[in-house]
């Protein structure tokens, strides 16, 4: 399929988008928790993938390459919009959940748009809230490992991180999730 796309076949492009639109959108959506923005970032991802498909190196898994571009788009956005990140996660310099909560912005009293309401419904479960409280690096690792089923090695490749760091992030992320979900799992 990728070879067909490299040859510029329109149908191969479409098929690649169809195959990966849900996993890519889901990852980005859970990273930024905004439907419209997630759609923009997912579009940006596929446009980069398809326009740059000739630079794809087959020694990497194609899905790893797509997720790398998608994750970079989400992380770049979160960095650019540090204020928005604060509203979700607290200060990026916060070291503990308490510090993160203490530095998080409160946005009470804002009117929800219809898309916000959809997001509230879709991302409203306790586990989704717990995932949202993770710092973005942990969140990406947990989603890639436990939702998308990537190996540690693939995640290291996707996120450009050493394997040991990925393991640490996943262990810490799971520990934090267990703390956030304490009581729910009792």
């Amino acid at each position, binding site marked *: 399929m990728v070879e067909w796309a490299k040859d510029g076949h329109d149908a191969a492009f479409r098929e690649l988008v169809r195959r990966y639109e849900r996993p890519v*959108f889901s990852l980005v959506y859970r990273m930024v928790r905004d439907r419209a923005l997630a759609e923009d970032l997912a579009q940006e991802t596929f446009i980069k993938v398809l326009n740059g498909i000739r630079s794809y190196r087959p020694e990497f898994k194609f899905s790893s390459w797509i997720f790398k571009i998608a994750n970079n788009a989400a992380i770049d956005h979160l960095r650019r919009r540090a204020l928005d990140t604060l509203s979700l996660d607290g200060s990026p310099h916060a070291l503990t959940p308490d510090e993160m909560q203490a530095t998080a912005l409160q946005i009470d009293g804002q009117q929800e748009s219809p898309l916000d309401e959809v997001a509230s419904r879709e991302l409203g479960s306790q586990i989704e809230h717990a995932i949202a409280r993770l710092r973005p690096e942990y969140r990406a690792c947990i989603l890639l490992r436990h939702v998308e089923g990537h190996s540690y090695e693939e995640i290291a490749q996707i996120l450009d991180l050493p394997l040991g760091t990925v393991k640490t992030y996943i262990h810490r992320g799971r520990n934090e999730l267990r703390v956030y979900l304490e009581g729910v799992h009792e």
Partner: protein
Amino acid sequence: MSEHPHNPHLTPDEIELWAQGLLRAARAIHLAECRECLTTGEHERKLQRDLARLPRFGPEFGFVERVMAKVRVQTPSGNFRP
């Protein structure tokens, strides 16, 4: 439960393997003697199951067309078979 030198607590990696049903029996037997590791393992298994059950979301209808409208396709498709 105390940790026996010949039967140490499970490492985080081993807990993960146990939660996935992949830990070798010689180490899994530790859980029969250690409530601490068993509790951690059960929480881990529940968490991993809950994460694996999370739904995948899709973009709004027409996403493929919106992407394709912005992509530079170099040659038209003629003989592609999916």
